[in-house]
């Protein structure tokens, strides 16, 4: 895995110096005193070529913030025949070459930035792989010690690499490493298992002096690549549906520009502060982004009316909560968040809509969306399109004061308290 640019400032001042420091220390301690074997044999060149081919077109997991790299099984072969220095140098060279090939022309600057982030991670992972390979060889007395050494080296490389990327992502996103892991564990584990098998096959062919057969092992690598791309397309489909729905809403109601995204971000943070699991807080964010989707079916003239609404008009607007649930309820992907959207205008005092639920009947997620939605509607941003036509925006302090005033009646007190903490800690 290689992390992409998520938050430049955090990466530049925290992650990158940390990574380079660790990488330098590890390289010196691992490689000091090792022999550098010349890599001009045919076997080495075949392995190097296969590693480059595997790395030429990595799979980008844009939203998760990493690329899947596939050259490791062949680089293990270089560790076997060329030694640690050859392995680390080859890994570093392929990392740089692959990034520069992807980011050419106008994107060259971005490519160079990615190298400052990805190269130390590659070096750290390679050094740990070398250390584990050497350790297993030293302590194992088995005639097939290369099998254990290969498995351990690949597993250590991949998990060190994954952990480093997830750590960088968690620093960038201000989330926990475990949260980042939960987002991506399926992809990581499936990939590591296949790569271990291919690495074993590589090491086996090298030991049996049948290096010319190594190109056959490109088949599982390319198949893994195809699988990862297909899985990514499926994972992205839900996200793309959300984007399409929000685009439809923004065409009908331009003031929603920015509102949905902000409510989503705040709701997720408040949910985490209230102890909701990572998985549920991800779903909460989706529900918060889609909470007003029912307004697609509401007359925009009424929604944007600057004067007070008539009773009939207000009844029409209130339908948006049920409409939002109706739009999503046939969907397997979103079925869990349907009730959170349906009830996001319910109130603890039982005077909400559409069902006048009592406090304990209202899902916590709906309560969180209700607070985040109300606050953003009051405060919004300076962006003209997102300002409501019927009210002057309040300041943050005024918005928080209003939430406090309605705590216990319109809003859940514990949610208001958590929300205040989130807002004040972000200032």
């Amino acid at each position, binding site marked *: 895995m290689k992390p992409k640019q998520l938050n430049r400032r955090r990466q530049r001042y925290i992650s990158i110096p940390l990574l380079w420091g660790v990488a330098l220390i590890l390289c010196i301690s691992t490689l000091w005193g090792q022999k550098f074997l010349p890599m001009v044999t045919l076997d080495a060149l075949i392995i190097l070529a296969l590693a480059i081919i595997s790395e030429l077109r990595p799979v980008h997991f844009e939203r998760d913030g990493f690329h899947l790299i596939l050259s490791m099984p062949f680089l293990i072969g270089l560790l076997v025949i060329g030694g640690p220095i050859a392995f680390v140098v080859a890994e570093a060279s392929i990392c740089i070459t692959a990034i520069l090939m992807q980011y050419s022309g106008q994107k060259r600057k971005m490519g160079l930035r990615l190298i400052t982030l990805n190269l130390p991670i590659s070096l750290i992972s390679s050094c740990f792989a070398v250390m584990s390979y050497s350790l297993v060889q030293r302590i194992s007395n088995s005639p097939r010690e290369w099998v254990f050494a290969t498995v351990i080296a690949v597993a250590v490389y991949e998990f060190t690499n994954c952990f480093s990327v997830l750590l960088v992502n968690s620093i960038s996103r201000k989330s926990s490493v475990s949260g980042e892991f939960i987002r991506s564990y399926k992809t990581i584990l499936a990939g590591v298992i*296949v790569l271990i098998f291919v690495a074993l096959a590589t090491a086996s062919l090298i030991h049996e002096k049948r290096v010319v057969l190594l190109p056959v092992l490109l088949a*599982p690598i390319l198949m893994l690549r195809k699988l990862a791309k297909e899985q990514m397309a499926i994972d992205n489909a*839900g996200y793309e*549906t959300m984007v399409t729905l929000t685009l*439809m809403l923004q065409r009908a109601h331009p003031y929603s520009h920015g509102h949905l995204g902000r409510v989503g971000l705040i709701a997720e943070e408040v949910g985490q502060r209230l102890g909701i699991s990572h998985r549920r807080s991800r779903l909460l964010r989706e529900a918060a982004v889609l909470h007003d989707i029912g307004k697609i079916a509401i*007359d925009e003239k009424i929604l944007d009316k600057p004067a007070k609404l008539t009773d009939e008009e207000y009844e029409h607007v209130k339908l948006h909560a049920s409409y939002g649930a109706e739009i999503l309820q046939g*969907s*397997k992907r979103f079925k869990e968040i349907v009730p959170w959207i349906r009830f996001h205008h319910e109130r603890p005092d039982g005077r909400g809509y559409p069902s006048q639920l009592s406090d304990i009947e209202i899902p916590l997620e709906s309560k969180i969306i209700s607070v985040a939605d109300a606050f953003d509607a009051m405060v919004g941003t300076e962006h003209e399109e997102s300002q409501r036509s019927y009210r002057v925006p309040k300041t943050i302090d005024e918005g928080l004061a209003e939430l406090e005033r309605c705590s216990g009646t319109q809003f859940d007190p514990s949610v208001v308290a958590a929300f205040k903490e989130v807002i004040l800690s972000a200032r």
Partner: protein
Amino acid sequence: MISTLAMLFIAKIQLPKRKIAQENDSLGIFSRAIELRYPGQRGLSDRVVELGLATASELKLDSIDLRNIETAALVRDIGLCAVPWAMVNYKGKQNWTTAEFATYDQRLLAGAAMLEKIPTLKHLAPILRAVYEICPSAPAPITKRIPVSSMVLGVVERYLITERLADASQAKEVLAKESGIRYDPKVVEAFFRVLPVHSVKEKVEAIV
């Protein structure tokens, strides 16, 4: 070897099924959203899909074109969010002015612009733009070749909208008149061949 075969099975059979199920899930969501905004459009997309696929099969189009027609038929109205709610829900198409029909047709361009931002759906944007080119309210005469998927959708939609405003015979007359001018004659003929079968089915279902 075994892992490669397992991955091949997953990549060629299991994942494509899941991908299509996921796409259909999403397309269902968009259809529901549009039908809630404009209840008068209820059922129209399903008819466009049915007749569009029947016409495309009659023309012996390949599976990629068939899938494109099906998905384009279901997403073609997402641009309706740019059409004023009151115009469609209060006024009704039979009372629209020429300018209002033009606004309605512009939904195809609005929809195409939205689809451009969605990686897995952006290939449908040129299809919708081409359907707009053969709309009655399109400003310029047709000078370029229209993709067959767009032509099928344009013919089917023109028929169904005219049928709802007037009746089936007038809808057929309009297509026959515009065949060779606005619409490809082969597509119109293929549509006329499949129409009786699908109109009978509809009547039987309505009675039952």
